[in-house]
């Protein structure tokens, strides 16, 4: 009886009695949700355009951030380091296209999916080899990103909002909007969608797969870098981030693998759900339910709506 009360009544009572805490938790959830969404965005980009489910997307976030701070630590000025990192992501896109995608063209998706596991391990090994595995600080100030926070007096208490988080939300929205427009309206965007549908058909109408793939993996790399910078600004940059990066998967399930708005909404739902779940229901279970809560949400969703909120319904034809 007491347990039922604890599960169904008490958390809401707590929410009501300290609304500023509730809003704070909501905000935290929103922020991490936005960041999850950005990781998911990278996935969606690549999946929409090459049909490849890039498991390494999360690692690319860490890798790019690590490259940036690593370069800076070796004395490279901040913005030059940024430019070089973007260059590195471009080279990465070239390498992936040449050595992974091209040889595996026309293979079943599951093979390509497994190839991205290999890519993940290569990036982890390489990143740690070159830059070291200890956690590093993000060069937030050097990039002229805002630090510090606003403290808003509201709802009987205080709600703190980090400026970097607000910046992250704004940058994310801008990226999403421009990508959505890019896919729908431009010629290249159409070509990308064609490639995602069928490699062979796209080839036969003269779309250069190689060019497309490099473009989209580079774009995903840039998104990953932006995500890495913002995430690194909130917590340190290390490969422990990869677990967080894996959280993008439930986001994709919720939002659908091919939908950009879906990635955002899915991210927000997961982020908020996770934080609220952890804060109000977590103590019941012993802490740390954040580790799996997102997956359980995703699982429940899968059972009722497998294609996600916005994904395309898969109809099997015989």
């Amino acid at each position, binding site marked *: 009886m007491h347990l039922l009360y604890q599960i169904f009544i008490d958390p809401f009572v707590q929410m009501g009695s300290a609304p500023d805490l509730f809003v704070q938790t909501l905000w935290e959830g929103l922020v991490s949700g936005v960041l999850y969404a950005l990781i998911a965005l990278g996935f969606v980009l690549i999946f929409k355009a090459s049909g490849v489910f890039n498991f390494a997307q999360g690692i690319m976030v860490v890798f790019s951030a690590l490259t940036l701070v690593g370069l800076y630590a070796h004395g490279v000025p901040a913005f030059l380091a940024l430019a070089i990192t973007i260059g590195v992501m471009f080279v990465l896109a070239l390498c992936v296209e040449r050595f992974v995608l091209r040889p*595996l063209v026309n293979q079943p*998706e599951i093979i390509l999916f497994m*190839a991205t596991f*290999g890519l993940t*391990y*290569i990036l982890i090994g390489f990143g740690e080899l070159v830059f070291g595995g200890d956690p590093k600080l993000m060069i937030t100030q050097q990039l002229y990103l805002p630090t510090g926070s606003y403290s808003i007096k509201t709802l009987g208490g205080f709600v703190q909002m980090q400026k970097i988080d607000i910046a992250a939300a704004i940058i994310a929205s801008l990226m999403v909007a421009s990508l959505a427009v890019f896919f729908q309206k431009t010629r290249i965007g159409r070509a990308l969608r064609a490639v995602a549908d069928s490699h062979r058909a796209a080839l036969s109408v003269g779309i250069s797969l190689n060019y497309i793939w490099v473009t989209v993996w580079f774009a995903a790399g840039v998104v990953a870098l932006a995500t890495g910078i913002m995430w690194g600004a909130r917590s340190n940059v290390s490969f422990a981030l990869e677990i967080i990066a894996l959280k993008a998967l439930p986001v994709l399930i919720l939002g659908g693998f091919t939908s950009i708005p879906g990635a955002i909404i899915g991210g927000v739902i997961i982020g908020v759900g996770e934080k609220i779940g952890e804060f109000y229901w977590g103590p019941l279970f012993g802490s740390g*339910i954040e580790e*799996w809560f997102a*997956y359980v949400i*995703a699982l429940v969703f899968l059972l009722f709506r497998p294609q996600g909120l916005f994904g395309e319904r898969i109809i099997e034809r015989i």
Partner: protein
Amino acid sequence: MFYREAGQYKTTYQADQALFPILQDKIGIILILAVAFIVVPLTVSNFAIDSILTPVLIFSLAAIGLNLLTGYTGLLSLGTGAFMGVGAFGCYKLTTFFPNINIVVLIVCSGFISAAAGLVFGLPSLRIKGFYLAVATLAAQFFLSWCFIRIPWLYNHNISASIEVPERFMFGIPVTGPTATPVTRYILVLSIVAVMTWLASNLIRGRIGRTWMAVRDMDIAAELIGIKLYQTKLLAFAVSSFYCGVAGAMLVFLWLGNAESESFSINQSFLTLFMVIIGGLGSLLGSFFGAALIFGLPIVLRAIKEGLHLSITSATVEHINFITLGTLIILFLIAEPAGLARLWQVGKQKLRVWPFPY
């Protein structure tokens, strides 16, 4: 000219469907078993047995488990580590409650516990497939990993949150715990793995193996010839988890002697998957090859470092290990998706026509 089938004809279907229909193969397997059971304990050092042979056998069993699910039934699973953990912790609790029951019996029972867990987390396979199912197995992995740390009852409220394996005896000889010798543990592991591999090969060659492969190749067609998809998939989950659970229990009780939740993390799931990919999806023999390669790689790298007297840290060796693993995966997927097992078959083909080129 040695590996020829000429003159060997089968007069019954039973003989035709035997596990080793070719005489040379029959002799080969008997030799291998003889070497493994008799020669190795007598000649190979305890150190080599304990640090290479025993773990490779254990991981081979886990790889077989994953292979049954992913290679034969086509259901990609990223939860292997967790199911191994269920077996390990299950065995620990069982032996805590029943300290006098033979540990091998308990290891097998813990397989059933793991199978039950596999069944539960396989339930979503009714409605979801492919990547989505893989993500569901990730849910299992993260949830169970969390359980291994946050449920103190599992490790008997031990302060260090890990299991310490108690001493257990069989026929008066210690088989687990610090007093058990490497050879004893090796023989036990070898026996269990040999028997379970044989059982797996029986399943594969019969009706159940065919239904699994049918589901993998074209589940719609499988349904239309009368196969019940859901039951087939659930059975695959259960059997696969059984194997992984036994492997996990053996990992802790017959090799490591203790366990932390790290042994059953997502990294273990990935490593097992790599073993299966490199060894060959859909090949029992490949599971052994894959386990040997994946487990042996860091050992080889370290040996190279020592041998060439390279002044690099062991952390660096770890990183090179990761890079090599990732590269191998991609290479195998490109060049030989059927893995080392296919290379082995090609090798045998060449042997058949030797000394002619084709």
